């Protein structure tokens, strides 16, 4: 007898619960829309900027004015705190940004490698260059004022930059040298020969210049004509020693077709190059 009554009561409760849930959902949706509209209206309002500025100025400014100098003083007194602070800022603020941005940027760069050069130029030009422009003079001034700083700086650079490079490269260089000692010998021999040739040429130049000076002075004093300008050709070694190379005389016969005259009767390699002003007889001083 009670069962029908209980089932009706249960149905009534269930309907009430469903209606309650429905009305809650509707209310949430209405509240969300109302909040969105309100936020949109507030954001679009010109008054909100003034309000925010007023709130910030009234609340944050005193905090900043009071706290920042204290914090900076504290940092000056305890510079060891600076590194953790920066690490904290970087870690909590920049790191998440970098974690999301860098993979995206790298992906873009992989897809469009032509952007790498402009990017690097932009980084160097807009970011590093100003820093270098400002920092380098300060560093140079510091070094000029305190030259004792130079050696630690240089040693630091050497230790941190060059030393690893040398440690990495030297074994390879030594290995290459061991693999091809002939090349090294040749290199050293060429260098020695080059130095000797250079020294010889220097000595010859200086002696010949001195010849010219002495000659000019003497001829100015004695009022004599300058030395004959035309050079004397030195016969080739093969012509002077034909017994060493029986076929070498052929080149003397080949010379006329190349515009060089040959003094055949004398058998000497007496040739004259046509059209060369420096070799024309009487063309000036012996210089």
């Amino acid at each position, binding site marked *: 007898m009670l069962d029908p009554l209980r089932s009706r009561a249960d149905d009534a409760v269930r309907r009430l619960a469903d209606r309650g849930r429905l009305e809650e959902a509707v209310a949430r949706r209405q509240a969300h829309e109302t909040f969105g509209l309100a936020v949109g209206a507030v954001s679009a309002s010109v008054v909100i900027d003034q309000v925010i500025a007023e709130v910030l100025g009234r609340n944050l400014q005193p905090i900043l004015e009071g706290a920042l100098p204290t914090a900076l003083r504290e940092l000056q007194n305890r510079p060891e705190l600076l590194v953790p602070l920066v690490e904290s800022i970087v870690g909590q603020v920049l790191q998440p940004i970098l974690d999301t941005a860098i993979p995206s940027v790298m992906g873009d760069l992989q897809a469009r490698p032509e952007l790498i050069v402009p990017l690097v130029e932009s980084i160097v030009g807009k970011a590093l260059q100003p820093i270098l422009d400002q920092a380098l003079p300060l560093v140079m001034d510091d070094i000029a004022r305190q030259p004792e700083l130079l050696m630690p700086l240089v040693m630091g650079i050497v230790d941190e930059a060059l030393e690893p490079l040398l440690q990495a490269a030297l074994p390879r260089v030594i290995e290459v040298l061991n693999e091809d000692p002939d090349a090294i010998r040749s290199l050293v021999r060429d260098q020695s020969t080059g130095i000797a040739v250079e020294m*010889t*040429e220097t*000595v*010859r*130049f200086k*002696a*010949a210049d*001195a*010849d*010219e000076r*002495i*000659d000019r002075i*003497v001829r100015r004093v*004695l009022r*004599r*004509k300058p*030395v*004959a300008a*035309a*050079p*004397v*050709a*030195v*016969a*080739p*070694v*093969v*012509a*002077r*020693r034909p017994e*060493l*190379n029986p*076929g*070498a005389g*052929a*080149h*003397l016969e*080949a*010379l006329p077709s*190349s*515009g*060089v005259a040959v*003094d055949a009767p*004398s058998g*000497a*390699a*007496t*040739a*004259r*190059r046509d059209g*060369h002003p*420096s*070799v024309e*007889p009487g063309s000036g001083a*012996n210089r």
Partner: protein
Amino acid sequence: MSAPPVDPRQLVAASTADPGPSLHRQGRYAGIISRSVAIGTDAVVLAVVSIGSLFVLQAIAAMVEGKPFGDVTIQSELGVTVVVLQSTLYFTVAWAVFGRTAGEALFGLRTIRRNGEPLGWGRSFLRFLVWPFSLSLCGLGFAWMLIDGRRRTWPDLIAGTVVVYDWRRADLATAEVIHPHG
């Protein structure tokens, strides 16, 4: 052992090429400073060789006579003869065979006939014989090059030679530009 054949085209190409800064004096008459230092170098070379020769001579004499090295003396005539012979040999062979002595080679000089040909044995020997005479009279015969139009000394005038700059390497020596002066 024979020298490698020379390609005529190389010779002509070398002769017509624009001379570099070290070659613009090529074939021109050498002046008094270059020749003086070259002679000085030859004197040093000859002195070293002569001292060595006399040392060897003294050692041989010591061995032959069975005396200690320090007790042996070489007659001055013999020493002078050795030095003169060595000098004669040195200059004559150098001019006749190589066209230059060691000093001349160092300073890029070459002794040639006026037409560019090598001296030969006769002229080389004659040139050497006249050298002492040239250096006498306060070196007047050597200083003669200062007033001669072709920078010739008395040995040059007598032997018919000239001394020119020749800074090229031997393998580049070519029949470049010859102006027959006489």
